[in-house]
């Protein structure tokens, strides 16, 4: 199982990676949306994208829309420091939208399971 983690903040990124690696997943990292698209366009096999919302150049939602417009249908989980409900109304096609707080470490694994079981 390979997960692409997109986040410009190194701590936030590493935090997500720590949770995922603990679940036994392999992680690939991207600092921004452009890098993420390059990785996905390349050879690598990826099963899931977890992206931060607020990033320079391309926001998490823009990345999601861009990927969908390119026909990439990978499950996509958005992480945000703001109200997740609002983002979800902005983009209802997101597989999940999560608020970053200390419970992330418990909630993220559950959400991943849910999202993957829907696929």
């Amino acid at each position, binding site marked *: 199982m390979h997960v692409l983690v997109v986040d*410009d903040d190194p701590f936030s990124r590493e935090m997500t990676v720590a949770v995922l690696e603990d679940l036994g997943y392999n992680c690939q990292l991207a600092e921004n949306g452009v890098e993420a698209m390059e990785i996905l366009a390349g050879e690598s096999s990826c099963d899931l994208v977890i992206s931060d919302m607020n990033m320079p150049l391309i926001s998490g939602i823009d990345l999601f829309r861009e990927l969908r417009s390119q026909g990439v249908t990978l499950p996509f989980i958005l*992480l945000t420091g703001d109200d997740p409900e609002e983002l979800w109304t902005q983009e209802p096609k997101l597989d999940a939208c999560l*608020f970053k*707080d200390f419970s992330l470490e418990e909630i993220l694994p559950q959400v991943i399971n849910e999202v993957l079981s829907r696929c």
Partner: protein
Amino acid sequence: MNKQRPSLSSKIARLREQFIEQMPGRVEEALHYLTILRLDPNQRATAANLHRFLHSIKGTGNSFGFEELGAIAASGEHLAARLLEMPLNVSVPFWDELAEVLARIVLNTETLRQQGASSSQEHDVPRFDLAPIDDSEGTGGRLIYICDDDPLQVEQLATQLQCFGYHPVTFTDPAKLRTAMAAKRPSLVIMDIFFPNGVSGADVLAAIEREMDHPVPAIYISACDDFEARLNAIQAGGQAYFHKPVNALDMVTTIDELTVQKKPDPCRILVVDDEPVIAAYHSLILQEAHMITFQVHKPERVLEVLQLFRPDLVLMDMYMPGCNGRDLAKLVRQVPDYFGLPIVFLSSETDKHKQFSAMRVGAEGFLTKPIKPDDLVAAVAIRAERMRALRMLMARDSLTGLFNHSTTTQMLENAIANAGRQQASLCFAMIDVDRFKAVNDTHGHPVGDQVLLALARVLQQRLRNSDIVGRYGGEEFAVILQGIKLELAAQIIDQLREDFAKIRFQAGEVEFSCAFSGGVAAFPQCKDIKSLREAADRALYQAKDGGRNRVVANNE
């Protein structure tokens, strides 16, 4: 699960540590954004960077469970968002608020760092705060209970303590003391050891203490000077032991030590930085450590502000446009008054040679950015306090701790200038111990010193904080009473004269008392320092001439 990998919680713990560790550097970068923006608020890309920085601190802070930090960053993010939404060329009113947010972020992570460090060492150390000792009423914590079965002795001691400005309440019955203690806590209890019928003062007090949350300092007195009585007193928690008859001055010295918890005045720091946000940021960190700061953004204003603010230390940016820190330090040093003023440079300069050249113009220290708040506070506090101690030594008389002649003169000059500006009145009193030479000749200089010390204490403790007391030389003292008229000033000094005359001094087996004469003059009746001093001096001479032990007001 792979057992060789570190556990998730230890990984997260390490991430949290790194996050905290790197915060000063990241905030430094954000400060840089802020300075750019302040010069040109239209730099949208920089504003976006600042916004993202705050947003990411909020998000990551929350993910790590640092909720307070998340909230601080959120308030900054909100401001940054407003900045992004503002139309171009509109002045931005909240730069200082943004600087404050950055300061709070760094201060909060510092707290987190300390918590992290301490929590890894020890858990749940019981902590409690002591309730403040009675100083609720205007007496300044001078309430003292004296309990002694001998009514004469207890009254005598009370009278003596009163002369030094304490508020003694006397009891001959230990049971009454107990009631009084429950009703109102004093700053200190003076307790006799032996009561009739074998009642021990130490036991009584120990029983009262058990009923109270916090012990009150106790001094024991006794007619016996044997080992058992002293041991008894110590075992009951007594802080001092006096043998009757008690020397009042010694007693007062001990009471002062036990009760006066005078908070030192906060250090005053002048922050010189051409970048207002950086100056505001450093000021906030220092203020958080209870220092008083003043910010200067224009190097050319430094000399003027130095005179008005009178700092204990100057924290100066090394590189400022038009005038670098080295030149400015040199310039400040050329003013004789500021020869000893500590100057600490703050810069991102890591080149040792350049640092060294800065030190050669007399910098006290060189701090490199980004600096952790604790390091900044420590570096500033230690130097400012040393400056303070030195000033104190230079400004005060070594026997009495009062201001010395030159300091008193300078303060009189300042006070007159102030009173002139505010159109207020001011009185100056000269006080001279009567027949002091005879005390020295009869009882010796150590006893003479006791008299001077007692007078110094009376003057210092009985006058208001705004009054300035100095030892002018020998047995001559000077008092500056601000904001009052001649008649009242003369009344106050006369009251002190009466009290001082009641103090009983001991020289071996001999008991004696002393008196002083005083002369008072007023500003603006006397227009300058010279005429004010001469008028007070003439009044003092009249008092001496009129038979001593009196106070004369100069009404010329």
